């Protein structure tokens, strides 16, 4: 079920009404309702894959409980290993099996050994990358004795499948979300009102900005072999905005929806395009995934290899970003994107002292502007790999981009129509940066606020394109 679909527009008020009017007195019933609603939400796409979530939830519920009981370190390691193997195995089979088979066949083919092409007929279950990482963090945190296991299966199953963030995050930590299922939830007027406003902002970003940018991006990338550099630059620029508005829009809708039911999810984006370094960008972009990788991959690896000195950080960055790239999709383009990102991050680590010296020589504003521009350009450059269908297409795109025409005025001019709305998005988010989302406008009189909401709704229904899926659904 898509957030910006008619089905969801019926589903959400229905669940909201049942939740606050029918089962509001009983926490367990509320959790049960959320669990059932989440399964309906997910099953709307393909009910067969519900079994996968149920199986995954059951496995980690049992393992979590056993991990907590056990004091024997061998048993604990075996249990944690089983959870890792199970979750990553699930992800590996459904998401990466064909990718690895194809890559092996290509690798053998390149050394002259021809293998029979075999492709498994596997459908990628929506959201599998998100909920497996969520359940993994639960088990690892219990293993590290940072978290108590959940005793109520209904609460745990509802935590894994919580519909606002089930298919595209934010990837919630059990330590943040799970306790909320055990505490009484009473309706808060302010929280629900603000949740609705955040949903509206998310829908605006998705339907008005992302989907309209997407129309141009698809055209430009499909003809990258014959377009001039300036149009290709515009294509990458639009894609950066498309992916940002699409995914941060989804996160806003997810967070806003959760707030309607009395839950607080972690923020997932904080003005990433205003970052002045790659490191800062990754602390502001897809925060829930990047903190996951930081906590469970980068930090343990950098600490484990600390004897290597600076090389430990370089190696850990390379591995973490490559894995993060692969997490996004079973394609070498994503791995290449991760490697490009790691190169940027490693460059920053290696040049930290020199940049610090240089920074002292120029004014703070000039430095921030230039480093912000350089960071944004680098991010756009890396997105060529993220968006391209194949590595070949990415290199052709790059080759055609870096031509003298790069500095010419993009032709045709009709491509620039969506530009002003992207500036509105950035400007509004910047002005309201101190708030949870830009529609926190409580200082304004009610009629003005309502006019802004109506204007957004107007744009939503009139400028929004058809029901395009969210980009991150495929991950």
């Amino acid at each position, binding site marked *: 079920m898509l957030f910006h679909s*008619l089905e969801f527009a019926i589903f959400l008020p229905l669940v909201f009404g049942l939740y*606050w*009017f029918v089962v*509001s*007195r*009983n*926490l367990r019933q*509320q959790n049960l309702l959320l669990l059932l609603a989440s399964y309906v939400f997910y099953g709307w796409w393909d009910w067969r894959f519900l079994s996968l979530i149920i199986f995954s939830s059951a496995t980690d519920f049992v393992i979590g409980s056993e991990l907590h009981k056990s004091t024997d370190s061998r048993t604990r390691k075996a249990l944690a290993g089983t959870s890792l193997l199970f979750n990553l195995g699930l992800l590996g089979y459904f998401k990466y099996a064909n990718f690895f088979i194809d890559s092996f066949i290509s690798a053998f083919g390149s050394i002259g050994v021809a293998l029979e092409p075999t492709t498994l007929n596997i459908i990628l279950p929506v959201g599998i990358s998100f909920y497996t990482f969520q359940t993994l963090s639960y088990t690892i945190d219990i293993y590290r004795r940072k978290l108590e296991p959940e005793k109520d299966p209904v609460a745990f199953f509802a935590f894994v499948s919580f519909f606002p963030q089930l298919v595209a995050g934010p990837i919630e930590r059990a330590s943040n979300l799970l306790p909320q299922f055990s505490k*009484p*939830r*009473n*309706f*808060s*007027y302010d929280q*629900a*009102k603000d949740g*609705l406003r955040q949903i509206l902002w998310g829908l605006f970003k998705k339907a008005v900005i992302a989907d309209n940018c997407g*129309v*141009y991006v*698809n*055209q*430009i990338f*499909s*003809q990258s072999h014959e*377009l001039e550099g300036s*149009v290709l630059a515009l294509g990458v620029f639009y894609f950066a905005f498309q992916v940002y508005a699409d995914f941060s829009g989804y996160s806003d809708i997810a967070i806003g929806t959760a707030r309607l039911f009395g839950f607080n999810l972690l923020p997932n984006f904080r003005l990433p395009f205003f970052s002045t370094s790659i490191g800062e960008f990754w602390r502001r972009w897809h925060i829930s995934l990047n903190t996951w990788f930081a906590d469970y991959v980068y930090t343990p690896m950098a600490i484990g290899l600390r004897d290597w000195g600076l090389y430990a950080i370089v190696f850990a960055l390379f591995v973490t970003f490559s894995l993060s790239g692969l997490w996004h999709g079973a394609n070498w383009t994503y791995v290449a994107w991760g490697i490009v990102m790691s190169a940027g991050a490693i460059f920053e680590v290696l040049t930290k002292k020199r940049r610090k010296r240089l920074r002292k020589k120029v004014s703070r504003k000039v430095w921030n502007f230039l480093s912000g521009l350089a960071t944004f350009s680098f991010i756009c450059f890396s997105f060529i790999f993220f968006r391209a269908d194949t590595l070949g297409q990415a290199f052709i795109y790059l080759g055609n981009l870096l031509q003298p025409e790069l500095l010419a005025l993009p*032709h*045709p*001019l*009709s*491509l620039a129509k969506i530009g002003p709305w992207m500036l509105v998005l950035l400007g509004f988010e910047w002005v309201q940066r101190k708030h949870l989302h830009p529609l926190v406008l409580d200082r304004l009189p009610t009629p003005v606020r*309502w006019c802004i*909401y*109506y204007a957004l*709704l*107007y744009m939503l*229904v*009139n400028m929004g*394109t*058809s029901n395009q899926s969210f980009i991150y659904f495929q991950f």
Partner: protein
Amino acid sequence: MNEAPTSAIKQFIKRLACFALPLLVMPVLIYLTDPFGIFRTDFSRQVIEPNQHFAKMEFLTQEIRPYDSFIFGSSKAGNVDSRKLVNGNFYNMSYSMGLPYEWYHDLKILLEAGYDIHQVVLLLDERTYNRTHQMNNSLLRHPFDASEMERWKFKAKYLFRIPNFYVLEKALYPLHQHDPFLVQYDIHGSGIPFKTSREAWVDANLAEHLEDPRFSETPTTYLPTPEEALAYIAHIRDLCSERHIELTVMMAPIHPRKMESLKVNRFDDFLIDLEGVVPYLDFSGANSVNRDNKNWLEQHHFRWHVGDLIVERLNTGRKFKDFGVWRGRN
């Protein structure tokens, strides 16, 4: 134990209802004015162009109408009076910015509905190669879906999709204002627009018309997206061949000023690629008809008498001067 719902939630619902009230007035207004003719059964009082695609397909699929041939195209195809075509009982499926992707799906819907189709005529134009079906999602062009459920969903969304102020103003005062250039559409008849008063005005004010600054405007250019068009023209060709339907493909006349900008965007390449898909009758070249502004309403739409030359060509095969050449046919 949680607390029972308090006054907070009641206050929330009340406030939400107040906010939504104006939004609920809008669907009623949209339904009553029905600017794009989605609910309309009588188009004689239609003030602005209806969503012809939706309205025509709904009309055709409600029951089997007495047509055995169809002409598909953008609004330009509306200026081809298909009633004058002698080799079949034609319905004119023209609508604003129609595209091969949609024609293919429409054709399949019509065949599945039980139409015994003998002839299909496609009138392509420059929109064919620089638009994709995803761009046709406005109220004026939202396509018709075979599934009943999808049609209901579109109608429900339509009620909440607010037209711009120009459209609303026109829709609200249909009877009081007289638009001298009003176009009306014979949706429940031949499918063509009724001959417009604009045509009569041009005849009476030819000198003024020829000075119309629109003829010298530089047209907006778009990125070419020929792949979808070529693929779906090929699908239509295959479908027609499979169902023994006679297919005629034509490229519409194109104003020379527009042709200049199209050449920059590789329109010529598209014409060459099209030859590889299907032979077609090309009226787009720099022929004597296209060069004369007397034959144009503006840069986009040729006049009815030019449509008659196309009809004549289809009926008799006779070529008017240098107007229209076959491409891709030995």
